C-alpha cells in the first residue's frame, strides 16, 4: 500500500500512580486530569510504524472521556498522530462496553473510517476487554484480537495472534479492527518538537447526539456494581534454602502447578 490511514482508539484514564477514588455508584472517579492509558501507547506506536512503512497516510485518534479531557490524546498527538476526535458528553457517564463501542464506532465513521482500526486488548482501568470486538461488529468489519505482530502486504493484514500455546498466523482483508498486546512494539518518546506541535493539531470534540448515538449512561447499562472489596493480600511465598538440591524442589514446585 502506498498510503494507509489508521485510527487508534485511545482511552484516557486517571493516573495509576496516584490512588484512585470511587464514586457513589462504585465506578472510578474520572473528574481530574487523565492520562493516555499505557496499553494504548502500543497501538499508537504500531499505527505510526504501519503508516511509515506504507510511505504515506496518517494516524487519527478517537476517545471518549468526561469534561472534554484531552491530555492523554495530546500525548498520542505528540508521539505523531495527526488528529483526533473526542466524544465527551455527561449523558454518556457510566456507559457500558457496548455503548462505548457504539460511540467509538460512530466517531470512527465520522472521521471517514480507516484502512485499519487499532485498540488495546483491554484498558488498564476497566479491563472488560470486549470493546475492540464490539466496535468491529458495529462497523461490520473483521476483527483480529491479541495481535503481537502486524504486517501489511498488498492490502492484506498479516497478524501473529497471541495464544496460550504460542501464536496463530492470521490473514485478513482490510479494513479491519485489531487489538494489540502490550509489548507488541516499543512506544516512542514524544520528541520536544512533537510535544510543542501537538497543541496545534486538530482535536474535535463532539457529543453523543452529534454522532447520532442514543446515550443510555449508567442507568441503561444493565449492570450495577454492588460492592467493591480490597483485593486479598498475597500470601507469603515459600522460601527454599538451596542445599545443592534446590533445583529439584523448584522443578517439583513447577510440576505441581502443571506449568512444566
Amino acid at each position: 500500500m502506498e498510503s494507509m490511514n489508521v485510527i487508534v482508539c485511545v482511552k484516557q484514564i486517571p493516573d495509576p500512580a496516584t490512588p484512585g477514588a470511587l464514586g457513589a455508584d462504585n465506578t472510578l472517579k474520572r473528574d481530574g486530569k487523565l492520562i493516555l492509558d499505557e496499553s494504548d501507547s502500543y497501538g499508537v506506536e504500531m499505527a505510526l510504524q504501519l503508516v511509515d512503512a506504507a510511505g504515506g497516510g496518517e494516524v487519527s485518534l478517537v476517545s471518549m472521556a468526561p469534561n472534554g479531557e484531552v491530555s492523554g490524546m495530546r500525548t498520542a498527538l505528540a508521539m505523531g498522530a495527526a488528529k483526533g476526535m473526542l466524544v465527551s458528553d455527561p449523558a454518556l457517564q457510566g456507559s457500558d462496553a457496548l455503548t462505548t463501542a457504539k460511540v467509538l464506532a460512530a466517531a470512527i465513521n465520522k472521521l471517514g473510517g480507516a484502512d485499519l482500526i487499532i485498540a488495546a486488548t483491554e484498558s488498564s482501568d476497566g479491563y472488560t476487554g470486549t470493546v475492540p470486538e464490539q466496535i468491529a461488529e458495529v462497523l461490520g468489519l473483521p476483527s483480529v484480537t491479541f495481535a503481537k505482530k502486524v504486517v501489511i502486504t498488498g492490502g492484506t493484514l498479516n497478524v501473529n495472534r497471541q495464544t496460550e500455546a504460542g501464536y496463530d498466523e492470521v490473514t485478513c482483508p482490510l479494513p479491519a479492527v485489531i487489538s494489540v498486546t502490550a509489548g507488541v512494539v516499543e512506544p516512542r518518546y514524544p520528541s520536544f518538537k512533537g510535544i510543542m506541535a501537538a497543541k496545534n493539531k486538530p482535536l474535535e470534540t463532539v457529543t453523543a447526539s452529534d454522532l447520532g448515538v442514543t446515550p443510555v449512561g449508567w442507568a441503561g447499562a444493565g449492570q450495577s456494581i454492588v460492592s467493591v472489596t480490597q483485593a486479598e493480600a498475597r500470601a507469603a511465598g515459600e522460601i527454599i534454602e538451596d542445599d545443592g538440591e534446590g533445583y529439584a524442589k523448584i522443578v517439583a514446585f513447577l510440576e505441581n502447578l502443571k506449568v512444566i
Partner: protein
Amino acid sequence: MIDWTDEQQMVRGAVKRFIDEEVRPHVEELEHGDLPPYDILRKMFATFGMDAMAGDRFDRQIAREQAGTAAEQKEPKGGDGSGLTLIPTIELCRVCPGMVTAMGVSMGLTSAAILAKGTTAQKVRWARDLLTMKKIGAWAITEPGSGSDAFGSMKSTARRDGDGYILNGSKTFITNGPYADTTVFICKLDEGNPPEQRKVLSFVLDRGMPGFVQSKPLRKMGMHSSPTGELFLDDVRVGRDRLIGETEDVSSGGRDGAKTTFMQERAGVAAMALGIIEECLELSVQYAKDRVQFGKRIGDFQLIQDKLARMEVARMNVQNLVFRTIEMSSIGHSMTLAEASAMKLYSARAATEVALEAVQLHGGNGYMSEFRVEQLARDAKVLQIYAGTDEIQITHIAKDLLRR
C-alpha cells in the same frame, strides 16, 4: 509564569520516563564506575530530537549571518519553548547532577564561547557539533594558581609565531577535560609585557594535537558522573584560524566573551539547584511518613517538620527564580551579570542546605549511599564553588549595588 504549562509538564513527564529507564539503572556505574555520561546524554538528545532542534536553530542563525543583513539578529525567542532546555537539567539533577555539569559545559559553555566571539567559519567548524552533542567540549580557564582570580593570576600564554601562535600552560578542574574533542583554551598574549597588561585570548584545540595532553579524570567529592581533568600544553602550535574571532582585538579582549559565558552558567545553576532540592524534598517527605521512632512517624515531630517546611520554602523560591529566567528568555530579555550572580548565590546555598538537611532528616540512613540524599549532598556542594564561588558572586552583587 506561575506554573509549568501543559506542554512543559508533558516534556517533564517524558524526560522523567527516559531518566527512569536510561539513567537510573546506570547510576552506580556513572557515580562509582567511571562510566562517561556522554553516550546516555547523546541518546537523550536523539530521543527527544534535541540534537536536530539545536542543529536547525544553528543553521538558521548561520544563514542569517551569511546573509549579512541581520548579523546581529538573534533567534526569535519563543513562548513555551523557552523552558525546554531547563527541564532536562532539572530532571537529570534529581538523579545525576554530574551529567548536567558535563552536558552544560559542553553544549552550553564551550559552544557559547565560540558563538559569542567566533567567526562564522569557526562557528560552523566547531559549535554545531557541540550544540548537537556530536562532539564533547571543554572550556579551560582555571589553572593550578588561578581560580577566582581567573585573569589576574593566569599563567597560560600564547606567543606569536609567524602567522600563528605557540601555546603553553596547564589547566585544572576542567569539566570534560579527559574526554573533550574540542577545548576552548583561555590564555594571555605574551608580548614581553607585564602579565597584568596582557590581552586575554581564546583558542580552540582539537583532541590529539601535538603537545596537548588531556589527563585522566580526577577524584573528587561529588559530581562523579562529570569527568574532571587537567590539561597540559607544551608548545602547541596553532594557526590563526584557531584564535576565536581570528583577531587579537576582540572588544575588551577575551574578557567579555568569558563574562557572557559566566552569566549563562550562573543562570543554569539555579535550574540544577531546583532539581536537587525537589528530589531531596520528595525523598525527605516520604521518609518522614515512613520512618517510625518513639512510636510515631518522624514527620509528627516538630523538629522534622521545621526541616521539611524550610526545604519547601527553598523549593518555592528557587522555582520562582527559574520561572523568572524562563519568562525573561521568552520575551527576549537577558539578565545582568549581577542578577545572575544573585540567583546563583541563593540557589547554590539553598541546594546545599536542603541536601544536607535531607541527610540529617534521614539520620544514619542518610549517610548511606543507598538512600541517595548522600550523593545529592556531595553533588550540591560544588554549586557554591564552581561557576564562581559564593564569595565571588557576593562581590559582583555588591559592586553592582555600589555602582548605581
